[in-house]
């Protein structure tokens, strides 16, 4: 060898080249696992809220009419007790409110009985929560504020990481040098085409 150097160090240097993909895959996998719960919450709520005009994603509506026998007691509390007994309601009302000379309201947490004291017609109306969906929507719409903003921001960062790391996980023709690039471009074209074709905001 003219310089007296061995070819070994150069080969070793090539071998020591860091392969980032195993790290990327491990991170992608764990961030993906971590994001499962939040994805279920946001995706379920997203589907529910997207169709807000067709249904109420937070509550079932209660709307019934009943008929009471007359006469009702003239005292409001007694009339309410009498009405609830006749309707088989055992809950204690939050309040009994004389809304007008002919209307007595019996208010519960989830429903109200509007009693027409002249004809005994009772209009029961209220809302019963859809427990899981209501909680998911509450989180999705960030109505709770406070610390949830940080959780939601972190989740958005996780999603960005999952999307971007996914681009580089597979080398070669199935990765960004081939099929991967094509599919990624198709996916990116969806919002772009929608904005262009719909006229945008």
């Amino acid at each position, binding site marked *: 060898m003219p310089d007296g150097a061995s070819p070994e160090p150069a080969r070793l240097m090539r071998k020591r080249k860091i392969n980032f993909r195993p790290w990327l895959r491990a991170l992608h996998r764990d961030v993906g696992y971590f994001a499962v719960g939040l994805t279920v919450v946001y995706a379920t709520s997203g589907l529910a809220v997207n169709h*807000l005009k067709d249904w109420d994603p937070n509550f079932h509506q209660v709307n019934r009419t009943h008929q009471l026998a007359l006469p009702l007691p003239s005292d409001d509390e007694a009339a309410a007790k009498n009405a609830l007994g006749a309707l088989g309601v055992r809950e204690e009302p939050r309040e009994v409110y004389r809304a007008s000379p002919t209307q007595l309201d019996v208010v519960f947490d989830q429903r109200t009985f509007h009693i027409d004291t002249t004809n005994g017609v009772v209009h029961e109306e209220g809302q019963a929560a859809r427990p899981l969906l209501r909680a998911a929507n509450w989180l999705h719409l960030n109505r709770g504020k406070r610390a949830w903003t940080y959780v939601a921001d972190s989740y958005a960062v996780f999603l960005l990481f999952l999307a971007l790391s996914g681009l580089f996980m597979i080398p070669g023709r199935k990765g960004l040098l081939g099929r991967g690039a094509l599919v990624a471009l198709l996916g990116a074209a969806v919002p772009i085409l929608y904005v262009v074709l719909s006229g945008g905001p």
Partner: protein
Amino acid sequence: MHKPNSELEKALARRRFIQTAGAGTVVLALGGVYVLSDALTREARGQTREDGRPRLPPGQRVIQALRPMGGEPGDPSPSAYRLRIHGAVEAPFELTFAELLALPQAELALDVHCVTSWSVLGAKFKGVRVADLAARAKPKASARYVIFEAAHGYTSNISLRDALKPHVLVAHQLDGAPLPRAHGAPVRAVASDFYFWKSAKWLTGIRFSEHDEPGYWETRGYSNHADPWKEERYA
């Protein structure tokens, strides 16, 4: 000709008949609802408001009853209810539910337009005109906007000039019955010339302001002005 003579064949034929009849009934029923609803839309498209604008704003379809459209409900208790009139006014005041009912009432048939594209024509609201509340509160000369304040921090904003129009209400009845909880009981705002999110449910306050303050939806990508005839749905 083949006759269904076994019990099994008869059962299968009966099942097919029931399935076909059921499917036909569903298709006819849904088609009927669609046709009826579209007839309402077509009829409304031929009508004109007193102010010369078409009765049905562009992109809207007529349905028969208000839809709830969600929101975080407030306290439905009439006895605990308070409506605060405050902000840039000379004489701020507060009303109980009973005091609100004791004020001069207006009962108006109003067209409601939801930003999600449904409209209800002639919904009957009963309540107190915002203009009457303003007359008592005496807005300062510098007041330019009205902010409807509702449960859980929800707000919406319209100009003072719009809020003082005679069909803008603080409503406690809908279609002759007490306002349902899903629609903001005991009291909601009704500013029907705007997309309906401006008509805050579970209303707790009316604040007069010198500056515009975009509200809950206005700061989440929806239009600040929300004129249905200009299709101002989004910012």
